[in-house]
């Protein structure tokens, strides 16, 4: 029983962190039709902001606050320097952002070295959850991730800005002719998506090994989540993250990490075989 509860908590934890990365990917793809291969590296930068700020000031929390702000600026710069010039050319955006991801990864190696860094757990206490002693920091991650996911939903579905971003996603030419500055919406969305990935990297840093490869470890499951849940849907991102995050932690509990990965890929393939547009896309 206790093992089950611990497993459920771990599943929720991974799913919610994955959701933040996936949401960023979905809003950027949905709005600009850009597959951002460097999204995992935005996660990576988020984690290293925490490493750098913790080393310099001793404060994890300052790093956690700064990471999304740094990534919003990085997102704006990447959009301005690279994406806006090529976003009509789908394949080129994949190549360009992949190249960017290599540059970021090597940049991190140059600055911090190839080895793993560690960030001390900022809330070392444990909390009793239905008889299970569970790390308080992991509960904090869950609460914060859930709150941010809700805030993203609110931004897109309850605000004037969100309504207009959805208008641009659905029909760019019409949105411009209705007086919406579509370029500004692109920039805002890229910054928000990047900040979400950076925040996820920062908040996960204390419970992961922070190394230059950690971005890939999140990029692949978040791509799978997008495909499984359905492109162009925030609810799809939630469902996809639940399926992929849940399957990953549940399979990893019983078998080796590598075998679990194979099963997760198989599961994703089966779902996409029968629902090519993802779970929210329906059968078409």
């Amino acid at each position, binding site marked *: 029983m206790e093992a089950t509860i611990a497993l459920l908590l771990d599943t929720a934890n991974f799913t919610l962190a994955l959701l933040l990365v996936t949401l960023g990917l979905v809003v950027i793809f949905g709005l600009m039709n850009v597959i951002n291969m460097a999204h995992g590296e935005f996660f990576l930068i988020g984690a290293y902001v925490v490493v750098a700020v913790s080393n310099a000031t001793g404060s994890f929390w300052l790093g956690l606050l700064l990471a999304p702000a740094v990534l919003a600026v990085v997102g704006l710069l990447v959009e301005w320097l690279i994406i806006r010039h090529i976003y009509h050319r789908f394949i080129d955006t994949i190549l360009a952002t992949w190249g960017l991801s290599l540059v970021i990864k090597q940049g991190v190696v140059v600055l911090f070295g190839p080895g793993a860094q560690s960030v001390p757990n900022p809330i070392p206490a444990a909390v009793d959850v239905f008889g299970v002693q569970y790390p308080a920091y992991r509960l904090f991650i869950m609460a914060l991730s859930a709150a941010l996911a809700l805030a993203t939903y*609110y*931004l897109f579905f*309850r*605000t*004037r*800005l*969100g*309504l*207009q971003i*959805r*208008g641009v996603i*659905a*029909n760019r*030419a*019409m*949105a*411009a*002719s*209705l*007086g*919406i*500055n*579509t370029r500004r919406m692109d920039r805002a969305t890229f910054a928000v998506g990047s900040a979400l990935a950076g925040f996820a990297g920062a908040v996960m840093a204390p419970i992961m090994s922070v190394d230059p490869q950690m971005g890939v470890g999140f990029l692949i499951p978040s791509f799978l989540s997008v495909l499984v849940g359905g492109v162009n849907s925030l609810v799809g991102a939630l469902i996809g993250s639940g399926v992929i995050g849940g399957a990953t932690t549940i399979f990893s509990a019983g078998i080796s990490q590598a075998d679990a990965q194979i099963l997760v890929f198989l599961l994703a393939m089966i779902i996409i075989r029968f629902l090519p547009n993802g779970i929210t896309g329906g059968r078409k």
Partner: protein
Amino acid sequence: MSEPNGPILQLAGVTKRFGGLVVLDGLDLTLPKGAMQCILGPNGCGKTTLFNVVTGEFPPDGGEVRLGGRNVAGLSPHRISRLGVARKFQVPGVYPELSVAENIEIPLAAGAGRYGPLSLLGYRPDAARRDRLLDLCGLAGKAGEKVGEIAHGEKQRLEIAMLLARDAELILLDEPTAGMSGAETSAVASLIRRLRDEEGKSILVIEHDMNFVRQLECPIIVMVRGKIIAEGRYEEVSRDPRVIESYLGKRH
């Protein structure tokens, strides 16, 4: 937007080329405020390009596009839109995934002022205005329906309602009755006449359907190969030999 009774839109010598192809060839056109004109012409004569140049989709290669006296050639589409120009696309530019009401709320939101921190607070659309527009365009009672599921003619009228939500003074309509039945066409013709007569809008219409053009009761401009070859009332234009030869076809 302009001094009373002055022209709302004035094109002077507007030229647009795509590679070696001259699509608009030194075009002159004047639309008085509160008036309606209809542009007729064969496919490929430059009608839609003319709209694209006015809305800023493409900058002209030469000439001036004056809105209420101001040259707007080269401004981006959203800026020209904010000067009071709204355009209806040939394929309805409505949002099929959203409800009828939400479709109207997007342009209402776009016109609701600048973005500050306040734009992140919950947004309450102007429901009274939205409902008045739906009513005007004959869509009352459809507010909650998903746009992908309403009739084609209703989508066309919804798009017109969306343009009105932008407070546009100059409305450009690109084949507003494409794909409509006869009854739907008459409903749209009467809606467009109301926009001119009761709402005081200035309107430019591109159309193929001669029956619809007659129902609009407005002056007609005939374009062929990027130039205006005839202007006048329906009865005059339809008897003009140049128009018959190049557009309507000769009767044998």
